[in-house]
Structure formats: structure tokens, C-alpha cells
């Protein structure tokens, strides 16, 4: 059963993600995760005040069902399909992280020093997590999609707008990873 608990190869993982998108196409839908954030807003009834959220989120219930399934999948994979060999990074990355006071993964998906209970005692970390979220939510809706909607669905359908968005994702990501993260951590 080792092949299940170890890190899945990028080729197998990529193929399965592509298949997930195609299966949703076969169901007559388009793969995209960030529009669920719009549904969550619309569900509160805020559409009466902000027209952007006055839309039929119930027609998007299928996508919320995908989210529910993904959450269960994440739970099963983390609790029953993991082992200590997971998240084996490039040793150079581990060294670099140490200079930012972020510990090596040792099988963990997330660093305790950013997401752990102790880290959340720090107002700075709470602010970072919230602000990161705001940028993700605002940016994905402004760009009309995120990694799933633009990088996977859009690029595989040869959409020029998606290429612009994905180049934007990487410009923003590289700026953050190389110039801003070293300042804030």
C-alpha cells in the first residue's frame, strides 16, 4: 500500500486533475473553485444590497457539492493515506526556510510556524492569513477565476484571457515569494 501513502507522482496527479475537469465537462459543468466564494457571499442574502451577489447561487449547488466532496477527500487523505515520507522538499528550500524561521516539513503539509496554534497567538500571523485570503478572493473574482478556472480549464481550452491571468498569477506569486515574504517573516 506504499504507493498510496507516499507522495503521488506529478504525472499521475496531473492526469487525474485533468480528468476531474473533463468529468465535470461531461456533466455539463465547468471546473472552477473560486466561484464558490461568490456563492458563499450570495447565500447570505447580501444580493439585496450588492447587485453582484444577486444571482442564482442555487444553480451552483453542484459546485458546492464538489467542495463538500473535496473537504471529505482532504480529511481521508490526511488521516488515512499519509506517512512521514511526505513533502520531501529540495534540501535547498529547507535551508532557505530555516533562515525565515520556518521549520522543515517532516511529513507535514503546513508549517506549524505559520498555521499552528502557537503561531496564531501572534496578531501578525492572523493578519497575514486574513490578508492573503482577501487578495485571493478579490483577485480571483476580478480575474474571473483562479488556478482551476484559468490555469487548468482556461489554458486547456486555449483561452488567451486565461494565459494573461496565469502570467499575472506568477508575476504576483514571484514578487511575494522573492521580495515580500522575506520582509514579513
Amino acid at each position, binding site marked *: 500500500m506504499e504507493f498510496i501513502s507516499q507522495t503521488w507522482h506529478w504525472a499521475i496527479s496531473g492526469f487525474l486533475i485533468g480528468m476531474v475537469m473533463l468529468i465535470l465537462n461531461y456533466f455539463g459543468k465547468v471546473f472552477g473553485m473560486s466561484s464558490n466564494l461568490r456563492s458563499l457571499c450570495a447565500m447570505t442574502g447580501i444580493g439585496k444590497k450588492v447587485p*453582484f451577489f444577486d444571482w442564482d447561487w442555487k444553480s451552483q449547488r453542484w459546485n458546492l457539492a464538489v467542495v463538500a466532496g473535496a473537504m471529505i*477527500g482532504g480529511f481521508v487523505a490526511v488521516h488515512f493515506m499519509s506517512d512521514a515520507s511526505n513533502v520531501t522538499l529540495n534540501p535547498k528550500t529547507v535551508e532557505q526556510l530555516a533562515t525565515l524561521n520556518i521549520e522543515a516539513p517532516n511529513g507535514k503539509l503546513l508549517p506549524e510556524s505559520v498555521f499552528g496554534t502557537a503561531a496564531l497567538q501572534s496578531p501578525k500571523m492572523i493578519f497575514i492569513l486574513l490578508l*492573503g485570503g482577501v487578495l485571493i478572493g478579490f483577485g480571483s473574482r476580478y480575474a474571473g477565476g483562479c488556478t482551476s478556472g484559468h490555469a487548468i480549464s482556461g489554458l486547456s481550452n486555449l483561452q488567451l484571457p486565461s494565459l494573461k491571468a496565469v502570467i499575472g498569477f506568477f508575476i504576483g506569486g514571484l514578487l511575494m515569494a522573492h521580495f515580500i515574504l522575506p520582509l514579513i517573516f
Partner: protein
Amino acid sequence: MNLLRYIIVGFIFGIVLTKAEAVSWYRIYEMFQFQSFHMYGIITVAILTGLVGIQIIKRKQLKDIDGNPIVIQDKEKGNMRYWIGGILFGLGWAMVGACPGPIFILLGAGFWSVGLVLFGAVFGTFLYGLVKDKLPH
């Protein structure tokens, strides 16, 4: 509407993204440092798989599960929204090492602090809805 099939697809998606470690803060950091091919490999193979599948769908004019032709709408034309929105999204993606799919998956897996990221993301979506008409698209 039968939601079960969507829950099953989502379940597979959640497992794959977790086992691929695409939900890992560390993998996103490593990707943006160009220190591993792993994430680039995942994204490239996913796109190539989708590309081949969509070409087959279009050329054979395949029908969906309900018997309707599969139509995948083109994205709206535009410039500013894709560049600016894309850059803002990228800043957030690298800042917290997660995009919308992984945010939900990590929360389901029991990483409660990711709830702060989700709260921020819902709020950011709300902010966009609020100021949308004043922004260049």
C-alpha cells in the same frame, strides 16, 4: 438534481490534490523558488490532459450526461481585469501558500487556521462585488 456524482468527483479531487501535495504551503513556496519541478509537472500534465480531452469533445461533438452538446464557453475578452486581478491573486497565493481549492480541502482535513484564509477570501470576494463597477476590466 443529483448531487452525489459531484460529491464523488470532489472527493477524488480532494484526495488527488492532497496526495500530490498541491495543498501544501511548502510545495507552493518551493515552486515559486523554482527549486522543484513537482508543481510545474502537475499543472502541465493537467493542462495537457484537459487539452487532449477538450479537442476530442470538440472534434467528435460529444454530448454530456443529459444528452446535450458539450459547450465550453470562451472567457470574456479583456486586459486589465486579467493582469491586475491575476497579480493580486498571485500575491495572495504565495502569501498563504493556498488557492481556493486547497483552502477548502485543508479546512476539511482539519487545519482550522485555514478558516482565517477562507474568511478573508469570502470577504475579498465581497469587496470585489462592492467596488466592481469602479474598476477597469
